[in-house]
Structure formats: C-alpha cells, structure tokens
C-alpha cells in the first residue's frame, strides 16, 4: 500500500493548475467539437443554395441576425484556433517543437494568430457593408 502511495497521481481537474500547454490542448478538442456542430450550419448553407433563391435568402438573413452573427463569430474564432493549433500538432507529430520553451512560443503564436485573423475577418466583413 505504501508503495502505491509513492506513485505519481494522474492530473485531477480540481487540483490541476492550468498551463498554456494543457489549456491549448483541451481547447483544440473543444473547438473541434464546436466546428463539428457548425457542419450542420455549413450543410444548411449549401442545401439552401441548391434549393433556390428563397431558401438562400432565409439562410443569409439568419446570418445577418444577432444570433447568426454570434454563432458565426464563435465559429470563426474556433476555425482559426483549430487551424493554427492543428498545424502545431502536425509539427509535434513530425518530431519538432518539443522543448518546453518552443511549445510555449508556438502556443502563444496560435493565440495571437487566432485573435488577429478573427479580427481581420470581421473588419473585412463589416467594411463590405
């Protein structure tokens, strides 16, 4: 029993101090899940376009509504995050960026990229109206 007590415990959420690496990891799953739900919206877009002008009009006016803009903003944030962090994961899979310093630097870059690209996207959308 005493031998067992010496073993390191697996991280328990209630006593686990969040770090950039663990937060970016769980955010990758969360955004991936959110984007998967967004595929239902994406399907509506294409099916509406195939159905005709009226269905497409219904879709675009929903996109312009408060709820639509809120959802699209969330999905744009999740999209850029999952894209950038996915590349970070692919780099890890190729055997690079494993030094703690580099893993953190890439993590901060992912957050920076997400914020800048989301902001740019919405400035672009606003200015086209």
């Amino acid at each position: 029993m005493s031998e067992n007590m010496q073993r390191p415990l697996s991280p328990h959420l209630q006593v686990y101090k969040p770090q950039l690496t663990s937060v970016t990891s769980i955010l990758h799953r969360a955004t991936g899940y959110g984007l998967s739900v967004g595929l239902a919206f994406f399907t509506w877009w294409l099916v509406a376009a195939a159905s005709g002008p009226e269905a497409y009009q219904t879709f675009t006016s929903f996109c312009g509504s408060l709820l639509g803009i809120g959802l699209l903003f969330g999905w744009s944030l999740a999209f850029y995050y999952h894209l950038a962090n996915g590349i970070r994961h692919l780099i890890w899979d190729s055997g690079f960026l494993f030094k703690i310093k580099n893993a953190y630097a890439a993590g901060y870059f992912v957050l920076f990229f997400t914020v800048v690209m989301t902001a740019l996207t919405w400035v672009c959308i606003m200015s086209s109206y």
Partner: protein
Amino acid sequence: MSHKWEAGGMKNPLARARGLGSAHHGVGNWIRLRVTAVANVILSVWFIWFVKSSIGLDHAEFTGMLANPLNAIAMILLVISVFYHATLGCREIVEDYFHVEWMKISKLVGIYLFFLAAGIACIFSVLKIAL
C-alpha cells in the same frame, strides 16, 4: 477488460484476436486524422477566400461562383476531407469520455449517420448547382 460479447462463440478465435489485439490496424485512424488534417489546411486557404468572396452575393451570383468547376471541385474535396476529419475527431472524443458501452456505441452510431448524411447532402447540393 473483457466484455460479455467477447466470451460467446459467435466469432472464431482469429476473428476475436483481430478485433481485440494488434492486427496492424491500430494506427490507421491516427494516420487518417493527420492526412485529412493536412488536406484541411490546404483547402482552408481556398475556403477563406471563397467565403470572403461570397459575402453580400445574392443567390444567382453565389451559385454562379460555386458552379465554376474549380470552386465546385474544391468544395467537394473540402466536404469529403472535413467531414471525414470531423467523424474521426468526434469518435476520439466519445471513445475517451464515454465508458458505458451502450452509451458509447449509440453516440458513435449517431456520429457516423449524421456526418454521412450531412456530407452526402452537401456533395449533392454542390453537384446540383454546378452541373
């Protein structure tokens, strides 16, 4: 950990071993998730441009743009790659967090049916617009 259905005589020993142990299939979905990820990165660049170009277009203008063969092809490739990637990703999440067998299986079946149906609906829509 063994399950009830493993003990039964429905499968021969080889089939049981293939389902349980190393049959060189274990890494397959890991690789598929990465291959579709690489495809998604490339197609995302086109997708950002496509969505940006489609803002403010009416139905005729939008379908006209999607009917361009290069756009239609890119959209179909994106649908296949993204929906496959999403299926594998959601499967990974369910397998990690749901440990009650019937709950896990029913969620997996739901995921497969949803992405298959939605993906086919998307591809049909693109073909209807483009052809």
